[in-house]
């Protein structure tokens, strides 16, 4: 799999998740003090979008029930679910944030 550009870096603000599309699926991308991230825009608890979820301590909180997901691993924190969300590799390349599937 190859990296594909998905968003201009100039549109990214630290600890804010930006909605974009990769391979026809909605994803959230952004940057924290731990680096760039790209995750699927779907909570593994009840399937709602994570759009608008606030980012603290390298985790995004689902805006519906507050399930938190580690942006580096996709792992869920808390009692509501232990199912991770899908994550992608993310990197900066010149002016663009690029995303790539993680090969199995």
């Amino acid at each position, binding site marked *: 799999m190859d990296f594909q550009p998905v968003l201009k870096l100039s549109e990214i603000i630290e600890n804010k998740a930006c909605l974009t599309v990769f391979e026809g699926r909605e994803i959230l991308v952004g940057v924290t003090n731990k680096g760039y991230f790209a995750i699927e825009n779907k909570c593994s608890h*009840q399937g709602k979008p994570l759009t608008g979820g*606030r980012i603290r301590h390298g985790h995004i909180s689902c*805006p*519906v*029930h*507050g*399930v938190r997901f580690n942006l580096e691993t996709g792992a869920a924190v*808390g*009692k*509501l679910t232990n199912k991770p969300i899908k994550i992608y590799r993310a990197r900066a390349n010149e002016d663009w944030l690029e995303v790539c599937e993680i090969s199995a």
Partner: protein
Amino acid sequence: MTTLDNDNDRPQRLQRPELRGDPITATRYTSRDYFASELDNVWRRTWNIAGMAYQAPEEGDYLVAEVGPESVIVVRRADGSFNGYLNVCPHRGARVAEGPYGFADRFVCPYHGWQFDLDGRVVDLPDPQDFKRGNPCSKLGLEAVVVTELFGMVWFNIDRDCGSLEDYLGATIVEEISGYHIEEMVRVLDMTAETECNWKILTDNFNEAYHLQVVHPQLVPFIESQGDFSQIDLMPNGHNRGWFASYQPSALHEGPVVEPLPSLLAEWGVAVPENPSSEVLRQLRKDVQDKKRELGAERGFDHYAYLKNYQLTDYVIYNIFPNSVITVGPEGVQLLRPRPHATDPAQCLFDHWWLVPKIGGRTHTPSPSGGPDLPVEDAEHEYFAYGEQSLGETADQDLSIGALQQQGLGSVGFKQFYLSEQEIRLQNFHERLDDYMRRDAN
């Protein structure tokens, strides 16, 4: 002998209230009936800390606090104040919000999707027309609790008829702790440990320094726990304060000066002379206070400007009834807090926080847990069982007595406590507990 009457040299002595001498027996530590009654009579009627206010900076940011079987949500509102609710859906009782923190434009119950605005009202739900008793919107809501922000912390009381937190704590505690400006600090350690004892075994432990020489021998070379350079004061409502001078050996210390005292002194350019007399040793603490005044600001210790002389060197412990133990020292503030278990009198949850001021240019701070220096940034919460991981050397030592005392209190061989004068804060605490249990407390 040095006189210590100056207000700057130690906390002002407080008039000691009369104690009744109530017997303290094991029932309160072991009985399930007592535990259930305590939930109603104490935990649902007293003030507790939900978390640091800075953890919830924006509208909709919330913290979830658990005390016994109760879970409380405190949420930041648009005007900057906090609302608080019992974390219970009025539909069929599910928890609405998950802790320890998060944010919500609306709280949404994970079970049937009832939605609550930040004022706690039901504002939307599936099939609202399906309720014979009427549409829950505008009719039902989350049960409110009382919330106040003080010392940079969010406090709550489940009793909606409680008085103000400031009246509950009293002017001495409010003024003295406010002087440390905890609201400008950052919590660099945030741990919770499941512990095999009743919560009061740990508050009792923090209510006396008699155990220090036995359980914490490493403190004796540089912290006083006895004699002229310590002081305990009882306060109304079961609170108390203990003052323990540092930067000098305890009266219990024998032999030459040993670490960490020389290093602590050297950091401020104070050296230990050869064969010092006890008077000379007492003066070292005053020398450090002078040096901190002189050099503190240029070294980035801006918070020293707030502090009285004794606060520049000494430790003061404020035991706030029932369980909020706040220890303040010159370089930071600890919360040492046992919380009751949801159902079992023989277990509790022990919280250990370490808050430090932001000192110019410093990115790391020594860890009270004995590990590597901690980054000066808000710490992620760590949750584990006692023994799985260190809570810090001193806290580990304190918790090491938990299970063994809990077990002993379950024996027919134990009658009642036999307390020394230096354990009088326990007596004050337990008599207030007795008041609450008889519902005599205000």
